[in-house]
Each structure stands twice: as C-alpha cells, then as structure tokens.
C-alpha cells in the first residue's frame, strides 16, 4: 500500500471501512489496560493520588503537539504535492487536536489545583499549551470562515506551517518570560527519574491515546469526504434540469464534477 493508492478517495473510503473496526478495538483494549494499570500504580510520596492525573495529562499534551505535526505534514501535502486527501486530513485533524489540547489544559489545571491552590497559574508549560489551544481555535475559525473548502485549504495550510515554525519560538519566549518573573522554578513533573511503575502505564496510555487519535482522525476524514460529496451533489442539483441552456451553468457543472472527482 502506498500513498498513491490512498490518493483515490473512493479507495480510501473502502480501505478505512475495513481498518476502522480493528483500530477501534485495539484502542479500547489498550485504553482499558492503560487505565487499569494507572489506577493501580502506587501513589507518589509527595503528590499522593493526584499524580495519576498525569496518566491522562501527559498523553493529551503529547497529542496536542503531535496533531499539529500531522497537520503540518498534511499542509505540505496541500501546498507542495497537491495531494487530494491532504486538506481533508488537515481540516479534520484540527477539531480533534483542539479537543486533546483542551483536555491537556483541563487536566493540567486540575493537577495544579492542590499544588498551587488555584485552578490556573501562569506556569510556562501550561501557558504554552494555552497558546497552542488558541492557535487551534484560530485555525478552526479560518476553516469555518470560507464556505468553499478547497479555497480555505491554502490559507489554512500556510497558517499551519507558520504555526509549526513559530511554536518552538513561542515556547522559548514563554519559558524565558516565566523565569524572568519567577526565578524559583516551579516543581518539575516528568523527567528521566521516573520509576518503572509509572513509566509503563504512561507509555501504554500514550500509545492508546495515539491510537485513539488515529481512529478518530480516519473517521473524521471519512465524514469530511462524504460531506464534500454531498456538497458537490448539491451543486450539481442546483444547476440541474431547466437551466442547461443558461449562461454559466456549463462551467458550473464542469467545476462541480471536477470537485466530485477530487473529493
């Protein structure tokens, strides 16, 4: 199976229809194992049971960045290779990425509540995630602002790539800003000193959440393809029957069928 095979939306639909149930099953199994292991992981001697939020928080935080990476590759696909499925992939990834980022924020702030005494602290790490969340929302607003998805695709691709270059810079400046104001470093979480009893459940959860993303993403891509087909069918319906002689109808029909082929 190569990318070329997947380029055809019809083949993509057929293939994913076969793959999706297996992926969903694998996700459920891994998630169950991961949740079970995390539930029975020992409490931290300092943080107590709150450390278990990490088993949810870390995979979500990882995915919030991973999804932007996926969208960046898809954007390259849109701009450079003009792959017909690229903008479908980029568009359907954005809301899922935003959801994971939101979960990372919520779990982070729930974790912080007993640590800081407030739900929100302008901690460098969480602040960066918040900015990432804003960028996801902006990207989704951009997709929504333009009715024709193929026109929105270019703009969104440029924004995604600029974002990908900018994110490390933002991360660096936020870290610098934070240390500027709070020289005493906030308690570090994670790091290389993790005990094995933490590391294994964490790894399982990370893989499970990544699988969850792949499953959701493929399903969302199918929806998007079908949505575009409905749209081009509607456009064909609009220019149907009595108007075959009308000026402009011909080119409209042509572009509609071209789009149906593309979608």
């Amino acid at each position, binding site marked *: 199976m190569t990318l070329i095979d997947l380029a055809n939306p019809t083949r993509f639909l057929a293939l994913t229809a076969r793959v999706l149930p297996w992926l969903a099953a694998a996700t459920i199994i891994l998630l169950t194992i991961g949740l079970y292991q995390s539930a029975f992981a020992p409490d931290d001697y300092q943080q107590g049971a709150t450390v278990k939020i990490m088993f949810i928080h870390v995979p979500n935080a990882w995915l919030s960045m991973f999804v932007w990476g996926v969208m960046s590759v898809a954007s390259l696909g849109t701009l450079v290779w003009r792959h017909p499925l690229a903008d479908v992939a980029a568009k359907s990834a954005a809301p899922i990425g935003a959801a994971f980022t939101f979960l990372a924020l919520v779990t982070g702030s729930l974790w912080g509540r007993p640590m800081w005494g407030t739900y929100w602290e302008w901690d460098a790490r969480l602040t960066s995630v918040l900015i990432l969340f804003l960028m996801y929302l902006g990207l989704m607003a951009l997709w929504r602002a333009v*009715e024709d998805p193929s026109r929105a695709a270019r703009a969104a691709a440029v924004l995604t790539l600029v974002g990908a270059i900018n994110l490390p810079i933002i991360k660096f400046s936020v870290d610098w800003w934070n240390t500027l104001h709070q020289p005493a470093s906030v308690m570090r979480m994670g790091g290389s000193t993790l005990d094995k009893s933490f590391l294994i459940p964490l790894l399982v959860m990370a893989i499970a959440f990544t699988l969850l993303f792949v499953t959701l993403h493929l399903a969302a891509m199918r929806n998007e393809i079908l949505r575009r087909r409905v749209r081009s069918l*509607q*456009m064909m*319906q*609009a*220019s*149907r*029957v*009595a*108007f075959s*002689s*009308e*000026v*402009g*109808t011909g080119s*409209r029909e042509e572009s509609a069928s071209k789009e149906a082929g593309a979608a």
Partner: protein
Amino acid sequence: MQLSGRGLVCVRGGREVFAGLDFEARSGEAVAVVGRNGSGKTSLLRLIAGLLVPAGGTIALAGGDSELTLPEQCHYLGHRDALKPALSVVENLAFWADFLGGERFDAEGSLTTVGLDHATDLPAAFLSAGQRRRLSLARLLTVRRPVWLLDEPTTALDAAGQDMFAGLMRDHLTRGGLIIAATHAPLGIDARELRIGGAA
C-alpha cells in the same frame, strides 16, 4: 392608479445627471427607460423608490393605498440580488416575505414558477447568476406590490428565463400593476419608451 413625475432634477456627486424630467405611467402600463450609460436610468428608479432625494421636482402616485408611502408600494429589483449566500433558497425568500409584509402568496408556488423548485433547500451560494436573478423574481411574486421598478431585469437570464419573465410582467400588468424598467435589451412586452439623456 397613476404614477407621475414632474420636473425631476437629479444631482449625483455634484454633477447634474438630468433636469426637468417628466414621466407618467398608468395601471396596466409598462415604461421602458432607455438611454446611454450614465444618462441616469438607475438614478430615476432610485428616485422613485425613495432611495435618492430629488434635487427638484415631485413624484406622486395617484389612486394607490393612501395609508402607504410610494416606496412602500414598490418592488425594487436592482443590480444586486439582496440574497444571503449562507441561507437556503427558501429561507431567503421566506425572510423577504416576512419582512416586507402585506399580502402574501404561496412561496413554494412562486419558486416553481421561476423554476427553482428543485433547489429549495440548497444554500443560495450554490446558485448561478441567472438562478439568483430568478430567486429575486420569486420575491416579486410572493409579496404583491402594485409598482415594479426593474433595473436591467433581464441580465443573466437565458432565453427561456426571459420568456418566463415576460409572462410574469404581462400577468402583473393585467392585474392592474405598473412597471418602470431601465433597460438596454428589449423587455419582451409592449412598453412605452421613455428616453432620457438625449440620443443614445
């Protein structure tokens, strides 16, 4: 019912477009306003519609509804279609029917008349220029107004559409309505010619 203008003067952007213009139209009569580009055809229609204020002269409708002003008894079909691309065909039409008020007629029926019944629930964004024009025409049928002010009504309509539109205008005239149309192309109905701005 008689619509008449006396000694109309129109000034746009400091330039006098026309002066001393007289016209009149009776029930059941169509007036085709002709003239070269920039002679003030659109301005005349907008004066009647109350969208421009005349620099001189008067416009009066005799025999209409005395409770209503002249613009409130007019339908104005301008260059722009007054359609929202995000709304569906039927939503667009229903909005104008609700908003313009007065006597209301079957919206579905008028969509069938203009040949858009297959597209009722589609967003107006999917329509071609000619179809958008047809949807504007459906507005004239759904809400009745005695005076139709039409600015280049046949642009973007195909031959079949122009025939259909000529039929609609004839119906309107036999019901006692009157039509003032600014046009370069023949309307397809008997119309008295009103030439403004000298020879074409």
